[in-house]
C-alpha cells in the first residue's frame, strides 16, 4: 500500500468502529425481539392449541404396519404366509415397573434370558405407549397360565398378531429365506420411519432380497388420546400400502423331487427353464426349518445348526464352490472347435497318460489302459482326460479362459438373491495378481479337465448348461416372476440379453457327444437311457476333493467319506428342443454317472411329463 491509505487514521477508525458496535447492538436487539415475538406467538396466542396437543388431548401419531406380502411358487403354492398367532405383549407405559413385570413373567412362563434381552432392545426403540411383543406364537399352555394371572400384570396382554409361516419348511428354506426380529445393527440401517411398528425384517433369501417390496409402506394414524394415553379417537389416517405378493419361478413339486432324490447326500440341484431363465429348482441339502427363526430361535438350536459339519444353513446352490470336474469338458471342447485348435473329425491318441515335453510328470487319464484314438465325440462321451490335456495344451490358457468366461464361469449370474458367490476361473493374470506366482503349463491341462483352481457354483454350472443348450444365447437366471402389489410392479425382464457367436456345426458336434453320454452304450451315463423315450444331453463329472499321489491308486472304499470325490452331472432335455437345463452336485458321491445323473433324470422326467400333459 502506498500514498494516502498508508496512514492509519486512528480517529476515523475509532468512530467507524464505535458506529459498527452500535449498529450490531441494534441488530441484535431487533433479532432478539423477533425471537420474543415468535415465542409470544407460540406460548401466548398458540398456548391453548399446543397445550391441548400436549396435555389433555395429545395427538399421537401411531404407525399402521403393512401386512407383509406372500410368496408363491409358479403353481400358486404358498411358500410364505402370515398366520394369526397369539403373542404376549407389553405396553411399558401402563406397567407399574417394567423390570419387575419382566422378572415375574420370566418366572411364570419360563422365558429365556435371550428373549428378555431382545424385548428390551426392541422396547427402547419404540414409544412407551406402543405395544411390543415379548413372546410370539404362544402355546395353549402358556396362554392358559398367563390368563389366570392376568390381573397381576397391568399393561401386559395377549394379542393376536400375524406371524410369518413357511409351509414347506426345510424344502426351500435357502431360497425363500426367513424373517427374524429386527436386531440392533438393522435398527441403524433400516429407515426408521418406515419400520416404526415393524418387528421383523427379511434375513435371508427372497425375504431379504425383496425386503422393500415385501414389507410395503407404513401408514400412520393421528390418534387423539387422553392423559393416560388411551386412544379416544382417530383424526387422520394415511393407509399403509400392503407388501407385494411375489410369485417365484420355482416349481415346488420338482423342488421336492430334487431334494428327496439327493437323499443322504449333501449337495445341490439347480434347474433352469431355458426359454425364460426362470429357476425351477433351487435345492440345497441338508437344509433347516426356517419357522423357528421367526419367533427367535433358541440359542442352543442355533448353535447346533451353526456348528454342524454338514452346514445346513449354507446355501450350496448359490454359494457352494466346487471344482466342475469333467462337466467343463463340453465347454472346453467347444472352445477348441471355435478357436480351430482342433476339428471334430480329428483324432488324438490316449495311451493312459500325457506328458508335457521335457517334463517327467504323468498327467493321467481316469482309464489307465487308455482310450487309444479319440475324437471329440468319444472324448466327451467317455470323458477321456488325455484328449483334453492335449486339446488344452493346443488351445492355450488365454483362449480357454476368455471362451469359458463368456459362459459365465468365474462371474456372478446376477440372480435376484443376495450373497451369490463369484466362483473362480483361473488365468495367468489372476494368478500373478492374487498369488504373485507365474502360470505353469501343467495348470492349463488341469484347468482343461475342470480340476485345479477352478471353482463353480451349482447355479453357474446350470446357467452355463442352459446357455449351451440355447446354442449360445445367454440365459440369465431369476427367481421372482411376478410381483402383485398396489404400487410396484416388477420391471419386465429381457429374457435373452447377449448371444455368444458360435458355429452351428460345432455346437451340433458337442450336443451330439452329450447325447451319446446318455444314449450310447459307451457313454458314462448310459444307465439313464432306459428312463427316456426322448433324447437328453448330459455330461458326468467327478471332482477330486483330495489330490492323489503319482503312483497311488484311488480306492473309494479305503478313503474317508469326506475325502471321496464329488459326483456331478449337467444335462438338458429334450436334446432337439431344450426346455430344461440342470446341474446336480452330490458331495462325496463318488461317480457322476452313477450318483448324480439319476437325480437329474428324475427331475427332467417329471418336468417334461408335467409340461407335456399341460
Amino acid at each position, binding site marked *: *500500500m502506498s500514498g494516502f*491509505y*498508508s*496512514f*492509519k*487514521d486512528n480517529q476515523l*477508525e*475509532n468512530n*467507524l*468502529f*464505535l458506529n*459498527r*458496535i452500535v449498529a*450490531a*447492538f441494534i441488530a*441484535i*436487539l431487533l*433479532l*432478539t425481539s*423477533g*425471537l*420474543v415475538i*415468535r*415465542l*409470544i406467538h*407460540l*406460548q*401466548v396466542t*398458540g*398456548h391453548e*392449541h*399446543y*397445550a391441548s*396437543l*400436549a*396435555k389433555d388431548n395429545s395427538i399421537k*401419531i401411531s*404407525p399402521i404396519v403393512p401386512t407383509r406380502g406372500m410368496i408363491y411358487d409358479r403353481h400358486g403354492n404358498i411358500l410364505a404366509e402370515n398366520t394369526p398367532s397369539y403373542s404376549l405383549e407389553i405396553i411399558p407405559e401402563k406397567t407399574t415397573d417394567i423390570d419387575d413385570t419382566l422378572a415375574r413373567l420370566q418366572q411364570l412362563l419360563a422365558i429365556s434370558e435371550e428373549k428378555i434381552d431382545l424385548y428390551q432392545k426392541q422396547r427402547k426403540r419404540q*414409544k*412407551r405407549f406402543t405395544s411390543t411383543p415379548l413372546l410370539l406364537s404362544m402355546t395353549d399352555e402358556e396362554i392358559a397360565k398367563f390368563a389366570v394371572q392376568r390381573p397381576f400384570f397391568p399393561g401386559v396382554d395377549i394379542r393376536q398378531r400375524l406371524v410369518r409361516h413357511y409351509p414347506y419348511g426345510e424344502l426351500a428354506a435357502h431360497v425363500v429365506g426367513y424373517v427374524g426380529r429386527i436386531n440392533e445393527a438393522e435398527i441403524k440401517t433400516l*429407515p*426408521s*420411519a418406515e419400520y*416404526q411398528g415393524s418387528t421383523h425384517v427379511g434375513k435371508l433369501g427372497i425375504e431379504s432380497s425383496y425386503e422393500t417390496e415385501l414389507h410395503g409402506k*407404513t401408514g*400412520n394414524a*393421528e390418534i387423539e388420546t387422553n392423559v393416560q394415553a388411551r386412544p379416544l379417537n382417530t383424526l387422520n389416517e394415511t393407509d399403509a400400502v400392503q407388501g407385494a405378493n411375489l410369485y417365484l419361478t420355482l416349481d415346488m413339486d420338482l423342488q421336492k423331487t430334487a431334494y428327496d432324490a439327493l437323499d443322504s447326500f449333501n449337495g445341490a440341484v439347480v434347474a433352469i427353464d431355458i426359454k425364460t431363465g426362470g429357476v425351477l429348482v433351487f435345492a440345497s441339502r441338508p437344509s433347516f426349518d426356517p419357522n423357528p427363526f421367526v419367533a427367535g430361535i433358541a440359542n442352543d438350536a442355533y448353535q447346533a445348526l451353526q456348528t454342524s459339519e454338514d452346514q445346513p444353513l449354507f446355501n450350496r446352490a448359490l454359494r457352494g464352490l466346487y471344482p466342475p470336474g469333467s462337466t467343463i469338458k463340453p465347454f472346453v471342447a467347444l472352445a477348441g472347435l471355435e478357436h480351430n485348435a482342433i476339428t471334430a473329425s480329428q483324432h488324438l491318441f490316449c495311451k493312459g497318460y500325457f506328458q508335457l515335453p521335457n517334463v517327467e510328470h504323468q498327467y493321467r487319464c481316469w482309464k489307465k489302459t487308455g482310450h487309444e484314438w479319440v475324437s471329440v465325440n468319444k472324448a466327451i462321451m467317455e470323458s477321456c482326460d488325455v484328449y483334453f490335456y492335449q486339446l488344452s495344451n493346443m488351445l492355450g490358457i488365454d483362449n480357454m479362459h476368455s471362451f469359458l468366461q463368456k459362459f459365465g464361469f468365474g462371474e456372478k449370474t446376477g440372480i435376484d438373491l443376495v450373497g451369490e458367490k463369484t466362483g473362480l476361473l483361473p488365468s495367468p493374470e489372476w494368478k500373478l495378481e492374487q498369488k504373485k506366482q507365474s502360470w505353469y503349463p501343467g495348470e492349463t491341462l488341469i484347468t482343461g479337465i475342470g480340476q485345479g483352481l477352478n471353482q463353480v457354483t451349482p447355479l453357474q454350472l446350470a446357467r452355463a448348461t442352459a446357455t449351451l443348450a440355447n446354442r449360445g444365447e445367454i440365459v440369465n437366471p431369476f427367481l421372482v416372476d411376478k410381483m402383485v402389489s398396489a404400487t410396484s410392479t416388477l420391471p419386465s425382464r429381457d429374457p435373452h440379453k447377449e448371444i455368444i457367436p458360435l458355429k452351428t456345426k460345432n455346437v451340433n458336434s458337442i450336443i451330439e457327444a452329450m447325447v451319446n453320454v446318455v444314449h450310447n452304450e459307451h457313454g458314462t451315463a448310459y444307465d439313464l437311457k432306459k428312463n427316456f423315450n426322448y433324447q437328453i444331453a448330459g455330461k458326468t463329472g467327478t471332482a477330486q476333493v483330495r489330490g492323489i499321489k503319482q503312483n497311488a491308486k484311488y480306492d473309494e472304499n479305503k478313503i474317508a467319506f469326506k475325502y471321496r470325490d464329488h459326483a456331478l452331472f449337467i444335462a438338458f432335455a429334450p436334446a432337439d428342443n431344450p426346455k430344461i437345463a440342470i446341474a446336480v452336485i452330490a458331495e462325496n458321491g463318488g461317480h457322476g454317472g452313477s450318483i448324480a445323473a439319476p437325480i437329474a433324470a428324475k427331475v427332467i422326467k417329471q418336468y417334461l411329463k408335467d409340461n407335456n400333459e399341460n
Partner: protein
Amino acid sequence: MKIETHHDQFEPPSFIGTLLRKLHVDIPLFICLSLASLLSFVILYSAGSQDMGVLNRQGARIILAFVFMIILAHIDPYQFKRYSVLLFGIGLFLLLAVLLMGQTALGAQRWLNLGFFRFQPSEMIKITTPMTIAWYLSGHPLPPRPKQLLIASILILVPTLLIAKQPDLGTAILVASSGAGVLFFAGLSWWFMTGILASLAALTPVLWHFMHDYQRARVRTFLNPEADPLGRGYHIIQSKIAIGSGGIHGKGWLGSTQSELDFLPESSTDFIFAVFAEEFGLFGCIGLLLLYLLIISRCLYIASQTRDTYCRLLASSLAFTFFVYVFVNIGMVIGVLPVVGVPLPLISYGGTSIVTLLSGFGILMSIHTHKKPLHH
C-alpha cells in the same frame, strides 16, 4: 456535590474481588457465565430424566472450560495476535487430517482420534478464524480495501467449506459468521454487504445443488414439517408443542411432559431450549434471552473500550458469534430457522463446544484486563 477522583477505577469490594482481578477475570462477565452454567445444571437435571451421570459429565466439562478461560485470560493479547496465523494453520491442517482419516460419528467425519482423547479441529477453527482475519485487517488501514476483502474472504471460505464438507453445517455457519463479523466491525461498506446478501440469495439454487441429502431434507422439513410427521418433521412438531404448551408461566421445573414422555428427541442437546420453554414459560425464556443479551452487551462494551485494532476486532467478532449461536439454536427450536446442529450455548449438554465457547470469553477477559497505555 462530591467529586469522585477515581470515577473510572473499579474498586475491588472484597477478597474475592481482589482475587478475581488478580486472575485477570472480568467480574460482570464471570458472574453471568457462572449463572448460565448453573442454569445448565438445573435444566439438564430435568431434560436428562434426572440422571446424575449426565450432570457429573457436564460438571467436569464446565470446570475444564472455566480453567481454560482463566488460563487464556492470563495471556497477554499480544501473544494471541502473534500466534494467530500459526494456530489457524495448525487448525486447517488438522481439518484436512480429519477429512482424510478422521473417525466417523453419525455419518459425519468430525473427530480426530489422538489416542487419549478425541478432538474436533473445527472447534479450534471457530476461534482461530476471527483471530486471523483480525490480525490481517489490523495491519492495514480501515475500512478494508477490495484486495484485503478478497484475501479475507478466502481465509474465511477455506475453513468454512472444509467443515461444511465433513458435513457439519452448524459449525460451518458459526465459522463463517465469526469471520464475517470481523469484516463487519472493520467497517465493510453497507453497499457491499447488501450486494453480498443479494448475490447469496441468487446463489441459493446453486447451494442447494451442493447440499448433502440430509441437509436438503432438513430444509424441506423446515419449510413443511407436517409433510413427514413420523420421520423428519417429528422434531419440529414436538418441539413447538413443548414450547407452546409451556405458556406464559411454564409448567414448572421437572414439569415438562413432552421430554418426560420421550416425545421430544435430543432434549438434552440441541433441543434443550424446548424443555426450558416448556418448564419456565415465556417469562423464563425472556429471562434467559436477557441473560444472553447481558453477556453480549458486556462483550461489546469490552470491545468498545479497547483501542488496539486487532483486539477490538477480535472481541467484537467473538461477541457477535456468540449471538449467532444463540439465534440459530433458538431459531431452529422455535421453528423459524432450519434445523442445523448448533447447541444452545452454555446450556446444552455435551460437546467440546463449551470449552471453545469459554475460551473465547477468556480471550475477551484478557483483552479487557491487559489494557496498555494509549499511544498518541
